[in-house]
């Protein structure tokens, strides 16, 4: 069974086998399955067509094919803490920045906001490999950074130091990483740069900007916990628009009238779907109670009223979250502090900042109408 994430590029055709060439002279074999980029110009030999199998190592597959895996692209600035270096870049320019990086090459970076999330993905992978050693449906982590390749050695040293399992990376030297994100069939992109995140979202790739919590609360090392806001994250921002334009009463009215109409999907719906499919793999092997993946919906909607439409939509999509928390406008911070997710996705900076203040690792999804309303820190919470 193969994952079917909401991505146009996935699902390439399998290819036939081809043995390694006896000498260096096999000139017309292409790089890849079809007329590849550097494919033969000149006398053509019939191609037998190659098969790509993931590299197999003792204990399961460690390098899944990108189209079969759940690819998480993470930028160096959220995987590690690079504030000092950022400062050098902003104050002294790129040449000084690169010199600084090379000088400090053997000093590993400290963990950044995405670090616990990535570690948790690795533990899920370990459990998946135990249960399904032949499967490529694993998390595949790619470091995507627009850093210059000069920083590469320091990044690799850091990855080695922290014992992370990251073998794939793109250092684009300043060019936009978006093309590469697509080439890697990226399911989720985490970055510190809101512009890049927005670009990714507009290209249909789930993406969010991450922030470092000031205090660090402990998160589970054995269970991956992912929390999602509802509107403009899992769902589209259509209802949010009504609320912003016409106020709370109109919002309630609209939701009641449209209770049985499905909400449109939001940018993180695909990612929840992907997590759900992996969860089912654990359930299939009797691990429902101790499933190493747990998902949460944390919404300002009310359970008795506007929340119903959200639940019906999820159900119609065949999706569910392990827990659904309808806060009816109450602050999200305390609830999130109890949950301790490895990542919490919200479209409103107000909520993200509130969460971060309480030590929750939060990520901003710059999508929808909320981006047009700059948040005011002291505004009252809205009850939905």
């Amino acid at each position, binding site marked *: 069974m193969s994952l079917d994430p909401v991505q146009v590029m996935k699902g390439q055709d399998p290819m036939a086998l081809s043995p390694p060439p006896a000498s260096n002279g096999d000139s017309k074999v292409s790089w890849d399955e079809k007329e590849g*980029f550097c494919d033969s110009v*000149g006398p053509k030999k019939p191609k037998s067509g*190659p098969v790509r199998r993931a590299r197999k190592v003792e204990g399961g597959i460690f390098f899944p094919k990108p189209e079969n895996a759940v690819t998480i692209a993470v930028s160096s600035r959220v995987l590690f803490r690079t504030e000092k270096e950022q400062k050098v870049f902003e104050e002294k320019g790129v040449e000084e920045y690169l010199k600084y990086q090379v000088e400090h090459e053997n000093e590993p970076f400290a963990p950044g906001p995405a670090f616990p999330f990535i570690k948790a993905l690795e533990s899920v992978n370990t459990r998946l490999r135990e249960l399904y050693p032949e499967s490529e449906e694993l998390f595949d982590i790619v470091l995507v950074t627009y850093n*210059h*390749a000069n920083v*590469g050695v320091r990044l690799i040293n850091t990855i080695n130091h922290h014992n992370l399992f990251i073998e*794939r990376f*793109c250092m684009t030297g300043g060019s936009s990483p978006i093309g590469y994100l*697509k*080439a890697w069939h990226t399911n989720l992109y985490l970055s510190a740069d809101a512009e890049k995140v927005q670009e990714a979202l507009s290209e249909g790739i789930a993406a969010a900007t991450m922030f470092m919590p000031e205090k660090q609360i402990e998160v589970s090392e054995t269970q991956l916990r992912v929390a999602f806001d509802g509107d403009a994250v899992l769902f589209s921002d259509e209802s949010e628009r009504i609320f912003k334009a016409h106020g709370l009463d109109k919002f309630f009215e609209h939701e009641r009238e449209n209770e049985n109409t499905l909400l449109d999907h939001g940018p993180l719906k695909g990612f929840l779907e992907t997590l759900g499919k992996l969860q089912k793999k654990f359930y299939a092997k009797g691990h429902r109670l101790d499933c190493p993946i747990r998902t949460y919906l944390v919404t300002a909607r009310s359970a008795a009223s506007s929340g119903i439409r959200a639940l019906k939509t999820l159900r119609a999509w065949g999706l569910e979250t392990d827990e659904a928390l309808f806060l009816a406008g109450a602050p999200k911070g305390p609830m999130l502090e109890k949950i301790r997710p490895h990542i919490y996705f919200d479209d409103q900076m107000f909520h993200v900042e509130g969460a971060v203040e309480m030590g929750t690792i939060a990520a901003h999804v710059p999508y929808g109408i909320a981006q047009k309303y700059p948040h005011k820190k002291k505004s009252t919470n809205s009850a939905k």
Partner: protein
Amino acid sequence: MDPQSDCTLVTAVSCHDIFDLQTGQSDSSPLAKGTAFAFIKAVQSVNERLVKLSEKQTLLFEVILLGKDCEEQAKSKIFDSAKYYDLEIGKFCFCSKEKFERTLQENHVKLFLSSDRDDVHSALKAGVPAALLCQQADQQVQNQLKVLFSGDLIGLTEDSTEYLKDLGFNDVQIHNFKAAKGRIQEFAMLIGEMRRRFGCEDSPLHTILMTVWGSRDICATALKTLRAWGLDVDEAFCLAGAPCTPILTVLQPHILWDDGLHNLKET
């Protein structure tokens, strides 16, 4: 050898790549552009920028056109078309197929580029550094000359050949890869020197390191090796076995130096 020519990056390109000699041409019109066209134009802009920096510049590209078994008619068409397109070609070398490798050696070619892998391999066997010339997806001239080096080759050390054996390469092939690493060095050093003349941004020359099979440590070794040779690459990719075509399609390098390492499909 002329000390000046040591600095010149003599690059030989086959006329079959510069022009499209297959499609029928009327007598008066110039030959259609071939695969190498974008490359030559990119090289010319690098030279222009180098000369702008210093008029007495000796570190420049010199492009030689190589014609294998060309008919007399074709030869004059080639001359005319080169003039028509304003191509800066240092030398036109027409030779027979048999004398092909000799011609490369006699002209102290530092890099032979061809889109035909057979030609690349015969040049390599004759000891001439050779790399694959890549078809650009759109024939529009790019602003930058993009050169891609293989991290698997450059990151190769005595102890790191195990993974190549696991992939199915035999000892002879591995030996050839080690030899290939030596050949890349001179070219990489010259490119490195050229690259250093420009800053991080707005460079007409762009260098890329791609490690397809090797681990991140192989990639780190490759980065350090290149740095020791004087080349700081702009971009680096480590694929750990993921398909390279999608990435190459985004990158669109002109020159791809892999020495046949990536001919292998996994079995």
